[in-house]
């Protein structure tokens, strides 16, 4: 008997079922009552206020936010952050539109995994866009894709996320209502809520343990 067979056998015995349960393909009805449909709580409020809530939550977590009017204002807004630093940018078209990938300290256009890893490990700053952000928790939502690699927002000690205001959702519930099955789109969806931190030693808070200790949100009003 394989481990699989044994474990399923034990489960069925434990649940008082006969051993020969029909396989998944026959879509047998579920026992023990219906599973209630998920109820997602999406607040009914003015979407325009989401940005203020996002900024408040983001900054409470230790993030720094910068609001700019349009895409042309992005590069000047982050110029100071890049002084004497090296940065890796993701392949997000939005970053190109904002003129970020053209900046001198910014290395972009990586499509090969090992090259990207090396570059991110050496860089001071990782620059990305986002897929969504969540106002209620001040979170970035990033789906791994050809445009956004995982390590850009993870390896460098600082992370700048640049995105249009329109991508701000209310909360996790709204995200799950738009994306009921993230796995259909990506192998990795990560919610980033504040800078990396730990309180493992004496409960004293330290930022920037393994992930970035400094995070920035550049919010573009009119994209």
């Amino acid at each position, binding site marked *: 008997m394989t*481990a699989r067979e044994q*474990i*399923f056998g*034990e*489960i*069925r015995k*434990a*649940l008082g*079922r006969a051993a020969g349960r029909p*396989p*998944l393909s026959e879509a047998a009805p*579920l*026992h023990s009552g219906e*599973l*209630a449909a*998920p*109820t*997602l709580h999406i607040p009914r409020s003015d979407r325009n206020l989401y940005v203020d809530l996002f900024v408040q939550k983001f900054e409470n977590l230790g993030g720094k936010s910068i609001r700019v009017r349009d895409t042309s204002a992005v590069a000047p807004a982050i110029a100071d952050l890049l002084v004497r630093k090296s940065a890796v940018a993701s*392949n997000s078209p939005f970053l190109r539109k904002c003129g970020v990938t053209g900046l001198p300290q910014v290395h972009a256009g*990586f499509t090969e*995994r090992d090259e*990207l*890893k090396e570059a991110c*490990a050496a860089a001071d700053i990782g620059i990305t866009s986002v897929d969504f952000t969540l106002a*209620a*928790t001040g*979170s970035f939502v990033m789906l*791994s*894709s*050809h445009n956004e*690699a*995982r*390590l850009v927002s*993870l*390896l460098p000690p600082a992370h700048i996320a640049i995105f249009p205001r329109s991508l701000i959702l209310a909360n*996790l519930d709204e995200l*799950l*209502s738009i994306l*009921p099955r*993230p*796995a259909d789109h*990506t*192998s*990795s969806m*990560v*919610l980033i*809520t504040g*800078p*990396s*931190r*730990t309180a*493992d*030693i*004496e*409960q*004293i808070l*330290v930022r920037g*343990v*393994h*992930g970035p200790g400094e995070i920035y949100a550049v919010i573009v009003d009119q994209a």
Partner: protein
Amino acid sequence: MKAPETEIQQAINDSRLQLAIYTATGRLIDHRAGVVSAEALPDYQELRDKANAIKKHTIENLDYYLEQLESNVIAHGGKVVYCRTGEEAADFVINLARERDLHMLVKSKSMTSEEIHFNERLEKHHLQAIETDLGEYILQLAHQRPYHIVAPALHLTRYDVADVFTKELGVENEVVIEKQTKIARGVLRQRFLEAGMGVSGANFLIADSGAIVVVENEGNARLSTSAPKIHIAIAGIEKVIPRAQDLAVFLNLLGRSATGQPLTVYTSFLSGPRRENEIDGPDEFYLLLLDNGRTKLLADPEKRQSLYCIRCGACLNHCPVYRKIGGHNYPWVYSGPIGAIITPQFHGVNQDTWLPFASSLCGACAEVCPVKIEIPKLLLKLREEVTEVKRRQDSDGMERFAFQLFAWIATHPKIYLLLASLGSIFFPLVPPIGPLKKWASQRTVPEPAKQSFHQYWASRGGRNGGARRDRA
């Protein structure tokens, strides 16, 4: 088998340790309270009810959901490995590493891996598993087991950490916490980049997505699962939930209950190896589904709710007994109230028979459990089982006699009364012997009242019958 009385007394006498445990858990208590209050989370109780209902349904249909999970993991290019025991799980990893000529892997925090002595098993086969969560890394260097489900190094001071680093890493003694963190970060960063394999746990397994969810604050789980070319996740079979959308319930409860964070810093939803258009991420994904006795718990309809646990640690934080005896005085890796109910179920009630009794049944745990496990009720059930075992073994002699005698007295009111009135004369004369000796050592033994209520009532000519209800 017997309670570790000496060690418990040592823990209680250690005032530094007591202060560390009390303030650390006190902080977690306060943080949680702030984010589940009526203002912060008006539907908190509703969420708990939903979480309980979803878990109940899933556990009672576990075969169905595991099949769905497996099918979706495979559809996304991953592989599922069923492990009856910890040994099977470790062997799989050892064999895979051998095949690929790998001698080191990075690992993120996983209580399940502690449960199966994963690191030790690998080490016997010259495969080094490096803990990357800061608290777990320190413990690995110090050769200690976790003190708390969520805050593993709760019991250590910065001076302890400094000594561990000096001894094991050969660095100069450094007591500044921020600098200690930097030391660990530097060492571990290299490991993330070099490792050919990363092992994680999973907080949730999502059946409709073939995905796992991992929550953390440091970033080490993200790195362990994104930098190496192989990702292995180890999870108990009970971790499965039906739909990604159910995360709206569970993610709103987990961080808040554990540390008072509405969301932890990183919440990763991972479904298999990287997709065709993705630049980075692992090439191979293996999900190890572990039984290791869970099907035993599943078989008990009253106690299977123990499997609902989402490992938030809130019960530990609120438990007045945990806050005194600390995590290392529990016999297994799972401590606190959840440890007290699952340990006897995994290991048998005739092991550690003291454990279900090491509780005043205050109920603080049940009050804060996000999935509403009825912990005090299960403790009572386990007590019943222990006394039954002892009765059959005939090893409960004195205590059983005492309770049988008490039951007899309490069903013969005249005797009860007689003893109560005599008690005020004789009680002070009873020497504190046996179990009463230690009870007496903690306190000044109370003097019984000079006059029992019966005597008082009689002296006032009070009515002695029950006030009768009118029979219509």
